[in-house]
């Protein structure tokens, strides 16, 4: 392919990204180190906002809560997602496309609707509480929503497909003859799983976990809808600062902290997936 042709084909998108993606992010960084007075931006250089962020206990707590929430969501997603991925990778049933539909359609349905479904289920006067109350099994409604529990459940639900997709790809590439070989050497199916399949799927576990963690700490729709305004996460602070308080520099600084963490995670994720594709011959 000639260089000219390549430029014509690739040019539009690269240009689009450079102007409407790279530039805005660079701008974000610039704003995060600037000052604002009376709604007007002054282009200076100051680390005031970052200092403010890390010295205020409230914001540090929010960061800590966000990371902890991310970790819990990741762990639960892994626990639920691994059996699913294992089954999907190894099944030869003709229902397989249907199972893929089950995993993909939540992704295509949109986050607000999925939250709504959980709200119906978990609210104080929601389906679960009403049903349990009607049968006389509880006297007070269980607090399933507007707290960390509800947020965690919904976040797991939203990001589980990503975990499954990451894991299935890796699991599928494991040579089935490796498991067979271990069996001829005396390993029971259970032992074969722990000795062969699990270690070889580690790159997938890592990749899936990084992905889900990164997505979970950036989510703010779920914490808002399912947490009321009682669960505070970093993305929510960003949203508030930018769209309510209009303190753009501070909001930008918050966003940038989140960005740095995300980018770091993504970089590791890319490294891990590259190695995974090379390691399992």
């Amino acid at each position, binding site marked *: *392919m000639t*260089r000219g042709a*390549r430029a014509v084909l690739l040019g*539009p*998108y*690269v240009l*689009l*990204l450079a102007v*409407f*993606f790279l*530039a*805005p992010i660079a*701008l*974000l960084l610039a*704003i995060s180190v600037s000052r604002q007075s009376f709604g007007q931006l002054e282009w200076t250089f100051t680390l005031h906002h970052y200092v403010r962020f890390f010295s205020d206990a409230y914001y540090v707590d929010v960061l800590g809560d966000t990371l902890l929430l991310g970790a819990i969501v990741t762990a639960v997603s892994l626990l*639920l997602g691994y*059996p699913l991925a*294992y*089954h999907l*990778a190894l099944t030869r049933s003709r229902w397989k*496309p249907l199972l893929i*539909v*089950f995993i*993909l*359609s*939540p992704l*295509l*349905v*949109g*986050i*607000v*609707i*999925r939250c*709504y*479904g959980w*709200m*119906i289920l978990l*609210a104080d006067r929601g*389906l679960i509480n*009403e049903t349990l109350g009607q049968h006389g099994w509880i006297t007070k409604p269980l607090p399933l929503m507007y707290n960390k529990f509800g947020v965690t459940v919904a976040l797991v*639900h939203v990001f*589980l497909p990503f975990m499954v997709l990451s894991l*299935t*790809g890796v699991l*599928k590439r494991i040579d089935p003859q490796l498991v067979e070989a271990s069996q001829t050497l005396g390993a029971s199916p259970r032992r074969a799983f722990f000795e062969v399949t699990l270690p070889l799927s580690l790159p997938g576990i890592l990749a899936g976990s990084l992905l889900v963690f990164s997505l979970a700490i*950036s989510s*703010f*729709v779920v914490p*808002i*809808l399912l947490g009321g305004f009682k669960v505070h996460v970093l*993305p929510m602070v*960003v949203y508030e600062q*930018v*769209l309510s308080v209009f303190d753009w520099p501070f909001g*930008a600084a918050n*966003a940038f902290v989140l960005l740095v963490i*995300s*980018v770091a995670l*993504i970089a590791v994720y*890319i490294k891990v997936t590259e190695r995974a594709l090379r390691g399992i011959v």
Partner: protein
Amino acid sequence: MILRVSVGLVYAFLLVPMVIVVLAAFNAGNYFTFPPQGFSLKWFANFFQRREFMQALWLSTEVAFWTALASAVIGTAASLALVRGRFRGRDLLNAFVTSPLLLPQILTGVALLQFYTLLNMQASYAALLIGHIVVTTPYVIRTVTATLTHFDIALEEAAQSLGAHPVRAFFEVTLGVIKPGVVAGAIFAFAISFDNFTLSLFLTSARLTPLPIELFAYLKYSFDPTAAAVSAFAIGVALVLVLGIARFMGLEEFTGF
């Protein structure tokens, strides 16, 4: 055996919220009770009668359509350039081109909002459209690349040896063969744009509201089953789109397993 049961439970977990929403949409009465109290379409009627929902639906569909079209064209072109021929910096370019996929949408949203405001084009149709194109094109690139790598370039060369100009050979031969990937990518782009929330939140205003944002605003303050009808409608759309992808590209190839 245990595997089958636990897998079944997890699938149930994945599907229950959506099933609940659909049930609530058709429920005649108070949707908190189980079993449901009768069948009714009144919430759908309400949905289709409310102007803000209909305007939002129209906007979402229109934006999604143009987004899908634009990202299909731009993405296929980019994919062609990336798959064919080795050149320096290809890996880097590859990473760059798919980077919007990896960045959380809230960050893209905030960055774009601040960028657009500086250019005084915030909350405009163009702003919304461009934002959507930026985040959906990587998906098109991914699916088209997957199809292209299976494509045997000898087909194009054969067309050229029979007298077809390279560009003609592309349109006559290559495009026909990679069509599944392009269409599947476009459908996926449509879905992402139609359901897009986080990014759009920063790019819209009271006058320019897509359906998910309208729904979100509605949900912040009320639990009216009309919201369930809106959601059920969107779920229907999503299912149609998934079937579209299945028909054109096959779900196993699309997901890579």
